[in-house]
């Protein structure tokens, strides 16, 4: 049983989806969708008909290996396919492998603006932040994605961008995979949220559920992951912006089970022996 209330808000439509509390206790919080019209409106259509609305600057944070980069890349690709002007910046100064920069050509070919360190420094073991990032924040595109490094250490870089980020419309989303160490409990996720907020001097505004075991993910893992982030949403008071699911799993998933959008994931960061995009 789903009721949809629509009312006018300041600059667009405000839609709230209410589901029976007995089924999804956190649905009221998790399924708040904002649609703001206008030229800059960022809409990404999704498989289950619900829409992820992200406008302006979107920063992805989370613990090591939570899947920030894969989510950022897929958001970028989906956004671009919807005709948005998309920019993505690699802010990962912490890890050295499997970063956005590794798929820069793939993204550029789609017409996505990719901001990464200069080619000759791509594999330097140095924390290089491209100066272009500040300019990108000053004049964000319709969808501007900042892919931060893992944990509080990776998020520290955001504090250095604080001057550029203030007065901007910013979504800062915590990507959560409950199959990763240290985020397999709500308490663990809240601890990392706190650490990231302190290090970045910024506030997390929403949650992204990214439950997966890469190519061993089952439908039950997706359902269990959804329940987990729903509980996290309730405990933290943060809205569940969307969850993710590999495109191969989508046909088997009962979308009615979710009261938030689902971002289809087409894995881009693959290993040398796996088939690429």
């Amino acid at each position: 049983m789903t009721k949809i209330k629509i009312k006018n808000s300041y600059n667009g439509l405000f839609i709230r989806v209410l589901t029976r509390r007995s089924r999804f206790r956190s649905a009221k919080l998790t399924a708040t969708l904002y649609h703001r019209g206008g030229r800059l409106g960022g809409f990404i259509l999704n498989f289950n008909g619900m829409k992820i609305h992200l406008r302006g600057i979107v920063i992805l944070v989370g613990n090591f290996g939570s899947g920030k980069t894969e989510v950022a890349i897929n958001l970028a690709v989906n956004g671009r396919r919807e005709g948005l002007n998309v920019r993505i910046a690699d802010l990962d100064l912490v890890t050295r492998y499997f970063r956005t920069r590794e798929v820069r050509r793939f993204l550029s070919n789609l017409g996505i603006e990719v901001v990464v360190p200069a080619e000759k420094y791509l594999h330097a073991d140095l924390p290089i932040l491209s100066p272009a990032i500040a300019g990108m924040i000053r004049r964000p595109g319709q969808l501007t994605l900042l892919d931060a490094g893992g944990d509080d250490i990776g998020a520290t870089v955001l504090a250095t961008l604080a001057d550029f980020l203030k007065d901007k419309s910013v979504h800062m989303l915590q990507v959560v995979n409950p199959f990763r160490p240290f985020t397999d409990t709500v308490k663990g996720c809240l601890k990392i949220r706190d650490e990231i907020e302190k290090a970045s001097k910024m506030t997390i505004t929403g949650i992204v559920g990214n439950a997966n075991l890469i190519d061993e993910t089952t439908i039950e893992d997706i359902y269990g992951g959804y329940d987990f982030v729903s509980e996290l949403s309730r405990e933290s008071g943060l809205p569940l912006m969307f969850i993710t699911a590999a495109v191969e799993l989508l046909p088997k998933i009962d979308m009615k089970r979710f009261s938030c959008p689902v971002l289809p994931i087409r894995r881009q960061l693959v290993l040398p022996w796996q088939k690429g995009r």
Partner: protein
Amino acid sequence: MGKILMKGNEAIGEAAVRAGCLSYFAYPITPQSEVSEYLARRMPEVGGVFLQGESEVAVSYMIFGAVGCGARAFTTSSSPGISLMSEGISYIAGAELPAVFINIQRGGPGLGGILPSQGDYFQSTKGGGHGDYHLMVMAPAGVQEAVEMVMMAFPLAEKYRNPVMILGDGLIGQMMEPITFPDHLRTEPPNKDEWASNGMDTRKSSKPNLVKSLFLDPKELNAHNLLLKAKYERMKKEDVRYEPYNIDSDYQILIVSYGTMSRVCKTAIDNMKEDGMEVGMIRPQTLFPFPEAAIHDAASKAGCRVVVSIEMSVGQMVEDVERCVRGKCPVEWYGKCGGEVPTPEEIAGAVRSLLEKNAGSFGAKY
């Protein structure tokens, strides 16, 4: 317990904890630093110790001290760091101590680069440090296997009272895979009272145990080296591990490859099979002791015209492969280094051209 998604470096740290190792000493270096980051959080939870040394040289002697006192201890590093540890490793081998060293290789020589490589094959299997000694060397091809090898490494080191090295590469350390921790591989440390410098009061003995690698009497040193040699011969008899792949097919070319490189080879072999071409592979899981007989037998199979060692180096293991094939058929090398990982397509291309080049080879058939 269900599966958990872990980065190789984190999984290596957790596997050591699950194996009952509570002493970890290390110095950070890309691409293995996440082991230390993980254990800095994890060791206090289990009552263990992580101590960062002031250099890799210091770390190797922290290991010497800990294992000399009978504790299970290990360290992780990457190529240049292992070079610095080599002196300590030689001392530990000389003093017959059971330590575990993990090398998540990066490109070399010198500072090289931070991307995956298999350029430390010679260093790991032929020495690295000085003197007549060998490490037992295991090479995982994935995160799950890395977990299992780490858990096996501690009892194997204790069985031989010899250092064991896990030789991975940057990909093993950095990639994520769903894994489980096999509880059956957890072992209790054996009684070390016979040799460990673990305190005369605790073992109620009047005989002090002296842990040392110094033997000034040449006869004594010769006898000591022969004892070590006997140990390495025993490893060759009892602990050779390898995985055959598509070896029952009628292959004309045999690949020998290890670690992550072997996974690219498997994809290439599967693709070539779909195209009607059979290729066999032996994947050494232990690099010392090396699967000599398995490679010799596979190269001796009727129809095998050429053997190729595929490595992320400019050809190191190929020398051992050549030694094992013993002239049964030509032995070739293919590979890349410096961080570039050959693709399945490049391997298939190399395999086809090597087969063409050796079309005149009669192989083992004649």
